């Protein structure tokens, strides 16, 4: 439950601000100059704030659409990401956001039209390329849809493009906006998944894996293209059995024809982010796993990583064509 909304002066009269505020009735509102005045302060306690985050409504001035990291990619020739929001209503213990930001408050950038313009410019200036735009890098694309209306706004923008694919990355089963649109051939609804036992322990406040698979099944049935994201791969006792069970459940419930792409990524953290997260949650078992301190990114040992990736890729390739499977490994 949001107890306080901070509103940048500059966008206080923006129609999207007003429409978001309408949903909150008499919730406490505080006007601010820039979102960073609240969001970037160093003496905040992310872990405590996460139990009661505030909402910040702001305008994004720069860096609206950015080049995606090299390891990102699901078949396009150029990859970009954009974030209408910072932070997430979920609380996943491996999420890099908790080590990247000093605040757990949600920032929503209400100037969606400026994102649209940047995307349109990129599409128009790359007519011979296949572009992929990833949403859901700094937030969950769908989880706060009932407040942000982001998907409802963004889908029509992409309906105009032939050479641009939109990926909405989510753990949410809030499907309302997608049910109201005709499925689009250039939009992938990508769900993050891991074996149930790991998810129960690591994914806090998220829909259960079985619920996510039900949602995938429903969207597939309607004709939406589905992305399956096994990122991060998590190690532990009987991990092979756990992952196999997950793949079997997916194979049983999601038709192959609906699967646009599958990506697999090992558990890795930039060093500083790992330091912050493990300080926030020193009791977390995940960080006591067989992680090794490679120079830049704590991760599982190379042989463990390889064994897990190979095993998963092999099993996934039994129900998904190899051409649709992507291994997202960033260079160490």
């Amino acid at each position: 439950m949001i107890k306080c909304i901070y509103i940048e002066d500059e966008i206080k009269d923006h129609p999207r601000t007003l429409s978001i505020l309408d949903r909150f009735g008499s919730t406490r509102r505080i006007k601010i100059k820039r979102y960073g005045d609240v969001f970037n302060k160093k003496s905040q306690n992310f872990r405590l704030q996460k139990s009661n985050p505030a909402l910040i409504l702001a305008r994004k001035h720069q860096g609206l659409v950015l080049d995606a990291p090299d390891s990102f990619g699901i078949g396009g020739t150029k990859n970009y990401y954009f974030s209408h929001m910072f932070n997430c209503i979920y609380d996943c213990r491996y999420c890099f956001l908790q080590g990247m930001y000093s605040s757990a408050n949600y920032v929503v950038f209400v100037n969606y039209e400026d994102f649209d313009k940047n995307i349109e410019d990129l599409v128009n200036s790359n007519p011979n390329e296949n572009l992929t735009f990833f949403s859901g890098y700094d937030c969950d694309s769908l989880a706060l849809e009932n407040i942000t209306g982001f998907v409802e706004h963004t889908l029509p923008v992409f309906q105009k493009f032939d050479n641009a694919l939109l990926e909405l990355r989510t753990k949410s089963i809030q499907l309302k906006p997608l049910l109201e649109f005709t499925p689009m051939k250039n939009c992938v609804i990508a769900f993050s998944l891991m074996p149930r036992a790991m998810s129960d322990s690591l994914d806090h406040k998220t829909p259960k894996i079985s619920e996510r698979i039900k949602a995938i099944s429903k969207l597939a049935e309607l004709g939406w293209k589905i992305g399956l994201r096994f990122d991060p791969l998590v190690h532990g006792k009987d991990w092979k059995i756990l992952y196999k069970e997950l793949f079997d459940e997916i194979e049983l419930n999601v038709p192959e024809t609906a699967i646009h792409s599958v990506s697999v990524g090992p558990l890795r953290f930039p060093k500083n982010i790992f330091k912050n997260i493990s300080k926030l949650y020193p009791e977390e078992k995940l960080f006591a796993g067989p992680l090794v301190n490679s120079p830049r990114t704590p991760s599982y040992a190379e042989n463990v990583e390889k064994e897990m990736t190979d095993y998963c890729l092999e099993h996934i390739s039994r129900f998904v064509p190899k051409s649709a499977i992507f291994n997202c490994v960033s260079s160490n």
Partner: protein
Amino acid sequence: MREFNKAIRWVVALKCEAEPIIQYFKMDCYINTGPFSVFCDREKEHWLVLSGIGQINSASATTYLSEISDAPPWAGWINIGIAGYGGKKLKDLLLVDEVQQFSTGHTLYPGPVIGNNLRRYSLITVDKPSKNYKQGHLVDMEGYAFFEIASRLSSQQLTIILKIISDGPDEPLELIKPETVTESISRIINNLKTLVQELENICLGEAKRLAQPKAYKKCIQTWHFTSSQKTKCLELIRKWESIFPSKDLFSIISMENDAKSVLSKISKHTQKYEIDWINSD
């Protein structure tokens, strides 16, 4: 198993504001010969400093209390006192979530994680008593400076500013008597108690997270560790405690001769551990 004491630090400007708190939490004078009078309870969990009026006093007293009470980084800090208000006079305890320094226009945004049932207000901290009450805003002479310092000693979420309205356009400050102030604070002491309990619990949670494990302290007392070995030792003991929360580390290392073999032993035990996700709590 680690045990921690509660750690609440009070910064209060006037004796008449502090009196009900000192009594309720059974505090006695700890020191009154220094720059500020300091009180604490027998368990040394609640400490209170009388800062006097104004931002410089409040900032100095906050720092002084931190040092004299050896305040841990998980301490909850509370500033409570009277404030002017440019609106209807409420008798409730009010929680501040925006505080502006009038002289500079700088604003800070406390994000308190307690007091969800309290009304939240903006506070303007002025340098001189003022009769220019701004509609909808509280006015005091300490809040900004207190928050700026205390939130750095602990965190924004554990730094709380609480106000009770004393004066306003129809009731000027100079007519407010000390006994009336004491009565106002006494009236809300039960609300305050609930709020403080909430803060104490959150602080204890933070203590568990931030404090050095007892096993680490025992290790560095028992064997000689170099500086880098100490860092490694702390890292390994935290890992050990997250994997084996109820297992005694010393049962496996007590026979070791030196720091190097201690580290090697703990490493050996933690490295071969595989997380059991199915049976994990």
